[in-house]
């Protein structure tokens, strides 16, 4: 059996490992186009503040792990897929046959339509190579403008602050991380960032970037302000890397369309991770989530099916955890709530604390929090297990911080022996 | 002769069936010694920590000598304390 995985991110690596567990004799190959061992983007912020070496971002020990697992890792770009012949053509002209193919090519940052993005002071923050450029330009005392206060933008805020730059953030939405947090929570993040000396512009866009003297650029904002910067970082969202499949008959929407087995419209080709438009646990719709836990879930489910186990995925829960200059926030599932559902929240502006729970009937369907680090995972447990909370729903309506108590009470026998 | 026994706390399990919470009226041989009565109910010397006859404390050494008389009320507690 020949399993070929295109993409060396978390989805690809977990898929390869799962395949190995299920089939000790299969040929398994990961083909990645970045000139690095498989690494994790989640680690980049920590690399930016010198907390870790580059090697600290590696998904697995590159020298030992893949060899020990008998997984071949190839650093090449894949140019073409011949789905009929079940053959890949690589950039160096060589080719690979496969029995089952997994597309785990991830996503790439979107460049917004802003004049001046091609200036050498402008970078995205997506790859290790981007990180190296940021380190080079984000010197202590220099001015840096970050375009986009989404998830990716926010996770590198702390790194930039710690590097000692003067930081301005420009976000088109009316709050920070608008696709992850509601107005109250996003507002807390904004105040927090401002207190830390970050110049935050929300409901604001960048009209253009122009070269200026001394290797600086000038960033013109829609609110009329002009910011001088040595470095501009764009973090305005990502898009699935579906190019490879253009021209095949595989169905593509926002990402590669897959069924609950992570199978594309071609039964021998699967897709996983940021590139895949898989089933969402909460809505049952097929969506691109582009988050780390979903990537690993996808990788596992795809591998199960590639190895012949018939495993239908119940869907991945959209969730995020974010550390914004020391303020931890997270959100799960339908954090914005559902029609006819109940919600409970506690909000303490002074202490930067927030918790919001969203119910449908007596089960939890979404949640978000700010300033909490303990037991937050149980929100996933409560949502994904669809636990009937019974009386505990009323208690959570009164005190939404009692999430762990609710979970323990609903799952453990609290009787006496 | 007739005496009453009262077993409290964890010693309640040694009481013969009856209605009252702690107290049983029982018949015993005339001249029965206190320590013998305690043995008859399988209460160990460690368990019979506080022993009163008619509300008066009888220490461990005196129990073997103490003869019960008609109408005595014998109350027994395991080691307990409070405050």
């Amino acid at each position: 059996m020949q399993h070929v995985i295109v993409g060396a991110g978390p989805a690809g690596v977990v898929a390869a490992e799962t395949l190995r567990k299920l089939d000790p004799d299969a040929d398994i190959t990961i083909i990645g186009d970045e000139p690095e061992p498989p690494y994790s983007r989640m680690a980049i912020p920590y690399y930016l503040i010198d907390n870790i070496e580059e090697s600290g971002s590696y998904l697995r020990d590159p020298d030992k792990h893949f060899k020990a697992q008998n997984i071949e890792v190839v650093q090449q770009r894949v140019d073409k897929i011949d789905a009929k012949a079940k053959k890949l053509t690589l950039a160096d002209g060589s080719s690979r046959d496969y029995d089952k193919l997994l597309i785990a090519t991830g996503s790439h940052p979107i460049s917004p339509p802003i004049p001046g993005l091609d200036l050498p002071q402008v970078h995205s923050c997506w790859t290790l190579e981007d990180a190296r450029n940021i380190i080079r330009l984000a010197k202590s005392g220099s001015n840096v403008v970050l375009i986009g206060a989404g998830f990716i933008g926010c996770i590198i805020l702390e790194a930039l602050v710690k590097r000692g730059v003067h930081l301005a953030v420009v976000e088109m939405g009316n709050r920070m991380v608008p696709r992850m947090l509601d107005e109250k929570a996003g507002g807390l993040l904004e105040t927090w960032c401002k207190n830390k000396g970050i110049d935050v512009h929300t409901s604001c866009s960048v009209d253009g970037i122009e070269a200026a003297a001394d290797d600086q650029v000038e960033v013109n904002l829609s609110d009329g302000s002009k910011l001088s910067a040595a470095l501009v970082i764009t973090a305005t969202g990502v898009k699935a890397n579906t190019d490879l499949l253009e021209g095949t008959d595989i169905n593509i929407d926002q990402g590669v369309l897959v069924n609950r087995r992570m199978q594309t419209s071609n039964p021998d080709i699967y897709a996983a991770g940021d590139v895949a438009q898989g089933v969402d646990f909460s809505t049952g719709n097929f969506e691109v989530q582009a988050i780390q836990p979903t990537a690993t879930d996808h990788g596992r489910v795809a591998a199960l099916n590639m190895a012949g186990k018939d495993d239908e995925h119940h869907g991945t829960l959209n969730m995020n955890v974010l550390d914004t200059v020391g303020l931890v926030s997270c959100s799960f599932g339908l954090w914005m709530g559902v029609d006819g559902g109940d919600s409970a929240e506690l909000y303490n502006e002074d202490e930067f604390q927030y918790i919001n729970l969203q119910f449908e009937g007596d089960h939890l369907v979404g949640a978000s929090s700010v300033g909490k680090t303990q037991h937050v995972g149980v929100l996933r447990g409560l949502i994904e297990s669809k636990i009937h909370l019974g009386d505990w729903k009323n208690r959570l309506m009164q005190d939404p911080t009692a999430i762990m108590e609710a979970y323990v009470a609903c799952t453990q026998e609290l009787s006496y022996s | 002769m007739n005496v009453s026994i009262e077993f409290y706390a964890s010693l309640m399990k040694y009481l013969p069936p009856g209605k009252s919470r702690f107290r049983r009226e029982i018949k015993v041989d005339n001249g029965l010694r206190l320590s013998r009565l305690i043995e008859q109910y399988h209460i160990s010397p460690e368990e019979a920590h506080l022993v009163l006859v008619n509300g008066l404390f009888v220490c461990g050494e005196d129990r073997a000598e103490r003869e019960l008389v008609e109408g005595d009320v014998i109350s027994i507690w395991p080691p307990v304390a409070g405050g």
Partner: protein
Amino acid sequence: MSWTRKILRVDLSKGTCTSEPLNMEWANQYLGQRGLASKYLTEEVDPKCDALGPDNKMIMATGPLTGTMASTGGRYSVICKSPLTGAIACSNSGGFFGAELKFAGWDMIIFEGKSDKPVYLLIQDDKAELRPGDGIWGKSAWETDDILHQTHQDPQLRVACVGRTAEHGCLYSAVMNDKHRAAGRSGVGTVMASKNLKAVAVRGTGGIGNINDAKAFMAATNDGKAVLAENAVTGQGLPAYGTQVLMNVINGVGALPARNMRDVGFEGAENISAEAMAEPRKSDGRPNLTTNGACFSCTIACGRISTVDPTHFSVKDKPEYQGASGGLEYEAAWALGADTGVDDLDALTYINFLCNEDGMDPITYGATVAAAMEMFEDGTITTKETGGIELKFGSAEAFVAITEQFVTGEGFAADLGMGSKRLCEKYGKPDLSMTVKGQEFPAYDPRGIQGIGLAYATSNRGACHLRGYTIASEVLGIPVKTEMNDTDGKAELVKAFQDATALVDSAGLCVFTTFAWGMDNIAPQIDAACEGDWSVENCLETGERIWNMERLFNEAAGFTADDDKLPKRLLKEVIKHGPTEGQVNRLGEMLPKYYEVRGWTADGKIPDETRQRLSL
């Protein structure tokens, strides 16, 4: 060393919170908690000051073993001048608040002055600040606890606060912590409220890592825990039956006072006993006792967690009182029950809940209601004063009604809130107040048990069993049995218990450990935790030093040997029946001997040589 070496000083007049180093010289002389805080109080407060004025201070203090793995090492005390007695007040509480304060990095908090508006103190590790208390003033202690948890969104926040009775000026209000633990006696909560301080909320994440000899400490505390586990009282009796097991014992030996100590022996005792608490009831098949619960670090776990019968008249229409909460402990069960003649377990449990919720000392409250009942029965007090309530001995309905009125501060509450001494004086019957130095007795009649009478009479905070629990010896045979009705040797016994208890209270430990532990179990734990010499001898001398220091405070406050006395009833009115029939307390036979073994003068003064011996 185990002390954090840091004191938080809160000036409520100025609204400031400042950190200062712990006086280590004093710490080495007075250990911590009761002893050390009393030292600060005696140095900083004029004993003649108005207890409810801004010149009184209130200290919340932990011991060096508070917050450690030493069994029961979770206690703190509240120290101030008492508004009930005018003497030194030191009330000890378990729960989780004390340990949390230590984890936040503080040995003690000294509150001084008075805030002009209601406030609460928020401590988050080394950050401490006063916050506006508008949202919690006027709320019960339970509501306050809930509101602060919700405001700060932290389930781990620990709260000590006062209920509504303290705000209304009840002179025996407690500081409540963790909802149902109390620094209960002598009105320390009233002092807190007088400063417009509603609550202290604390969260500590630093922990305790500065044990002097950590390895020796773990060995000593493990040995201590093994002793507690193997001892029949602390290993089995207390967890299973709690302190309430004493109800039948003390009744059985003829020393259970009843009906304002007019009688000895209570016919309803068994209905409100530990055994009754464990019996399934008819309505729902569940017992009153839900489980036993522990305070922080305690491997005994004597605490009662109870529910009231949901069909009982007191809670039938009140679902908020149908859940579990802190149940009856012996002293509360006696004062609320036998002393008022009420043997309705559910009514007493409910009233106990209300005592916890609004923070009144159930001993003094029960005894004060009992005094009122005696005056109601003799016609001194009528339904005119009680707002129509037939306040008769034995009436659960009347007791529930008057308590519900009391917590709101309405009706007869102002009179009952004075405590029995002032109440009986007000109505011209001063002899009906069963108090020493103005504080009500606990549940052991000194006519039946001689030594405890001496302990009551000489207690530095007024009548109290926890200042020298000679019951352990006189009734329970711990460590050795002494005769209840003997006066010989009782002076020495009382002194030994008083000094040892002062030391245990100052370490951060619970006095209940002493049912199993001797000083040779306790001293090694302190010695491993703290720098300095904490041998058995030094521990006992420290206890004696503390006792004498407290006495000196009272002396300066105006107390004399004339205050080391018992009410006439206990000296003159004989017990009418039962095994102790014909007895009175023979305090006169014991008191001179007590002064002598203490090294005091015949009129109860502490002479220079005794002061020098104890470095006072």
